[in-house]
């Protein structure tokens, strides 16, 4: 399967589900309280969450009243428009003026951090950049080996220490090495951790601090990786990771499944954290820049 096919197939799966539901609900229907309730169910079913859903639908309801809308299908446009307003404009990652560009990747266990780093590295290499990866997950069994394989695949360099060593020391070495070897990009992997474990969150803070000390202003980007299957807990994840590591963007993975990833709408709404990339498969090319317009179009299919 080629890159575009893959992308398309990933997104269509997401699209099909919501589209079918929206169409069947709205087609040929007149506006009614029931219709709004059904809209609520669809949004809640996409993991957007009760609170955000109620607010969004309330806005749609209000607008329908003001704009004197009668036809159910018109409601779709308004709903889409409201979601668009919420998600805002596309804001891709931008490299800083100086190199190395340091990107730190964080998130709870198993969401796809290491895989995403592999995909990102491949993308940067393709753009002609010199990439270095830091195996900051010194905890999970065989985590460094896993990243090592991705480094090979993406032709990036790898800095790793023994299992069980201090992740901050890995980060320190990696920044030094990236500077002396004149890497363009350094991506730091970290061990998956639940945001509720304060000692592990402190460890992450320390990694961040060490990077900043060795290269003031770095890390330039901190990406929170989130699995599209995540429910309402995603909000709490985003909140805590943002507070402790100054996350500035999200990578939404596993959108090739049937989950909608709607929690990112709530996250944008509550925490103003935008999605930067989406993961649509396990292959090296299965990464796409997040585009809010496309995301919504894909959800509603058009």
């Amino acid at each position, binding site marked *: 399967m080629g890159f575009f096919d893959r992308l398309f197939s990933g997104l269509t*799966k997401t699209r099909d589900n919501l589209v079918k539901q929206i169409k069947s609900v709205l087609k040929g229907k007149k506006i009614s309280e029931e219709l709004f309730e059904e809209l609520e*169910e669809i949004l*809640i*079913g*996409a*993991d957007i*969450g*009760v*609170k955000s859903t109620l607010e969004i639908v309330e806005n749609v309801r209000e607008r329908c009243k003001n704009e004197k809308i009668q036809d159910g299908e018109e409601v779709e446009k308004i709903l889409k428009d409201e979601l668009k307003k919420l998600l805002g404009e596309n804001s891709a990652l931008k490299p800083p003026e100086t190199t190395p560009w340091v990107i730190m990747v964080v998130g*709870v*266990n*198993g*969401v*796809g951090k290491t895989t995403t780093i*592999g995909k990102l590295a491949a993308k940067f290499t393709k753009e002609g950049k010199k990439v270095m990866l830091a195996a900051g997950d010194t*905890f*999970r*069994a*065989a*985590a460094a*080996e*896993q990243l*090592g*394989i*991705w480094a090979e695949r993406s032709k990036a360099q790898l800095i790793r220490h023994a*299992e069980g060593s201090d992740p901050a020391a890995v980060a320190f070495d990696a920044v030094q090495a990236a500077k002396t070897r004149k890497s363009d990009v350094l991506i730091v992997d970290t061990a998956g951790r*639940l*945001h*509720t*474990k304060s000692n592990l969150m402190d460890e992450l803070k320390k990694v961040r601090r060490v990077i900043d000390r060795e290269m003031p202003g770095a890390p330039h980007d901190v990406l929170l990786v989130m*699995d599209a*299957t*995540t*429910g*309402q*807990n*995603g909000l*709490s994840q985003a909140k805590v990771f943002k507070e402790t590591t100054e996350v500035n963007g999200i990578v939404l993975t*596993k959108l*090739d*499944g*049937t*989950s*909608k990833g*709607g*929690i990112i709408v709530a996250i944008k709404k509550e925490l103003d954290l935008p999605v930067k990339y989406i993961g649509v498969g*396990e292959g090296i090319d299965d990464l796409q820049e997040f585009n809010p317009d496309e995301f919504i179009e894909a959800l509603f299919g058009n």
Partner: protein
Amino acid sequence: MIFENLAEKLQNTFSGLKNRGKLSEKDVELALKEVRLALLEADVNYKVVKTFTERVRTRAVGEEVLKSLTPAQQVIKIVYDELTALMGGAVSGLNLSHSPSNIMMVGLQGAGKTTTAGKLARNLKENGRRPLLVACDIYRPAAIKQLQVVGSQVGVEVFSVADQKPVSIAKAALKYANQNGYDVIIIDTAGRLHIDEDLMQELVDIKSALNPQEILFIADAMTGQDAVNVADSFNQRLDISGVILTKMDGDARGGAALSIREVVGKPIKYASFGEKLDSLEAFHPDRMTSRILGMGDLGTILEKAQKAIDEKDAQQMMDKLTTDDFNLEDFYNQMQQMKKMGPLNQLLEMVPGMNKQLKGQDLSGAEDEMKKIEAMINSMTNKERRQPDIIDASRKKRIAVGSGVKVQDVNKLLKQFSETKKMMRQFGGLATGKGKRKIRMPFFGK
């Protein structure tokens, strides 16, 4: 948490209502509105929320409000009971009656299969089993290495073959297990999407090749609304035997548990509470219910308190056991403590080495035996319990009559008791420190 404690919230909702008597339709509707919100906030699938609250409504309307309860508490109680019943039922362990028994771990990417396989292997080994871990994730980079590391951490061999398809690896593992005396095979499979036709077929093929006794679906407690689709697909293709919930040490409310339970109807067998390999626990429906409803994990707190007390008791008991003044009263207390821990056969599963010895034995006999012993000790005076030596023929007769047993039974008890005491004294040196839990039931396992 966006929604405050459900119990509190319901309390407020009902604060204006003072009427007692039967729950009216209005009472119930008012309460269910909050329940619905709490469940959705906990990620219970919205369709499941609908059917569930409908069920509660039917049951609740017209129900008498108990004297000691407010209408709010009454509704919570109904919701709580219904939820616990839905998630619970009989405690379900693993079916390990075959030799070897085959267990397949399946689920989405990143759910926690590999770590959980390691934890399961560890628990089985502690129960005197000889598990073999099998690495069938040939896709994810370093997945085999990960299982090997986990295996070495728990001291369990990991079977893997290079450059083979998962089905062949599984078949070879079965042969290997048979040749080398392993009695449980745990197959770690690659994470996959339920809509990935090829990879789902691969699981079906492994299943037909191995005829596993257990196919465990590993589900992340943080999963949202889609949990129903995923679990349903895996179940449709594989007819899973149970579910393990992972990452329960976070703050996710875990409504997926309810969704999965409702949709696939298979038991949740374990819950996993951490990255350490000793964090796999039996699933407690009541605690999960409190958690999903956001009522605070009261059960866990209570149990922790209980555990601390028991631990202290156990230590005191141990100290006593190894000295001369261990008497029938202590023994009686010891039995009570054991009973608190659950049915005997389950309890014995937890005792290292015990399982093998007792395999195939009818434990209901032992349970009856325990009841008899209890009755006999109950019929003794305090003095007799403390100084069994004074129990002469006439006292024996009295005790036998009082507890409805024969005099021989009393004799047997006294004889076993003095033997045990002797044995315990010999054990004394060994029984210090961590090993203390291992010898809590001197009357069994001879």
